C-alpha cells in the first residue's frame, strides 16, 4: 500500500480530545479505591490506546506506507519481548531462590 492523504485538522483535534479524556480517566482510576484491584490492567490498556492513537494519527502510520509500520512495529515488538522476558527471568529467579 502506498502513502495516502493525511488526516484533517478536525481529526487531529478529535484525537487530542480523546487523549486528554483518557488521561483524565487514568488519573481518576488511580485515585478511586474501587478500581485498585484492576488498576494495572486498566492503566496498561488505556496507555496502549493513547500510544496507538498518537502513532496512527499524529505519526501518520495509519495513512503512510506499510513499510514504515514494519520498521517501527518490528523493533517495538522486540522491545516488548525483551521487557517481558527480563521480567520473567528476574522474578522467576527470585521465586526459585525464595521458594515462593
Amino acid at each position, binding site marked *: 500500500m502506498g502513502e495516502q492523504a493525511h488526516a484533517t485538522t478536525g481529526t487531529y483535534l478529535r484525537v487530542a480530545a480523546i487523549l486528554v479524556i483518557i488521561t483524565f480517566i487514568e*488519573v481518576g482510576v488511580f485515585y478511586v479505591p474501587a478500581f485498585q484491584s484492576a488498576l494495572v490492567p486498566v492503566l496498561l490498556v488505556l496507555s496502549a490506546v493513547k*500510544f496507538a492513537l498518537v*502513532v496512527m494519527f499524529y*505519526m501518520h502510520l495509519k495513512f503512510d506506507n506499510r513499510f514504515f509500520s514494519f520498521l*517501527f512495529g518490528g523493533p517495538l515488538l522486540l522491545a516488548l519481548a525483551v521487557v517481558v522476558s527480563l521480567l520473567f527471568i528476574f522474578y522467576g529467579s527470585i521465586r526459585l531462590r525464595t521458594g515462593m
Partner: protein
Amino acid sequence: MAHAPHAAHGEAHHTSMGVDSRKMAFWAFIGSECLLFGSLISTYLIYKGRSQVGPYPHEILNIPFTSFSTFDLLMSSLAMVLALAAVQRGDMKQGKLWLLVTALLGLIFLGGQVWEFSHFYHEGLGLTTNLFGSTFYVLTGTHGAHVTVGVIWLLTLWVQALRGKLGRANAMTVEITGLYWHFVDVVWIIIFTVVYLIQ
C-alpha cells in the same frame, strides 16, 4: 505509485521502494529508540520495590503535577501536527506559530522536570540514594534529554522559518521533526503509566 501530497515537491528523496529515504531512515532510528527505552523501562521494573532505604515512590511522586506535564506534552503533539499541516499547505504564518507553540510547550515540560528533579533531590532522593532513585533518574532523565534535543530542533526550524528558509518545499523536514517529537510523547505516555500511576 502514490505519494503523499507534501512529498511531491522538490525536497523528496525517494528510494527504489517509492518511500522517502530520510523518512525511512528516521523510522529505523525510532525503531532503535524503542529498544533503548525498552531496556530502561525493563531496568526500572526489575528494580521496582527493591529499594532498601527511602524515599519510596509513593512518598515522593506528585501525580497532579505530572498529570499536568502529561497534558502539556499531549498538547505539544497536537501543536506539532498543526504546524506540519500548515507547512504542507504553504501557510507559513500558521506554521511558524505552531512550531513556536510546540517548542514552548516542550520548554514548559522541561521546566517541570527540572523542578521535579530539584524537589526530589531536596527531599533526599539522589541518583545513588537507592534503586528507585537510580532507575528513575536514568529513565526520566534520558527522556528529558530527548525532549531537550527536540526543543532545540524545533527552535532551529522556527528560526529558519522566520528567516524565510523554511517553506512548503521543506515539509518533509518538518514531518521528520514531528516524528521525533511524537515519539518522545509516546515514550512519556508509557513512563507516566509505568512509573507514576502503577506504583
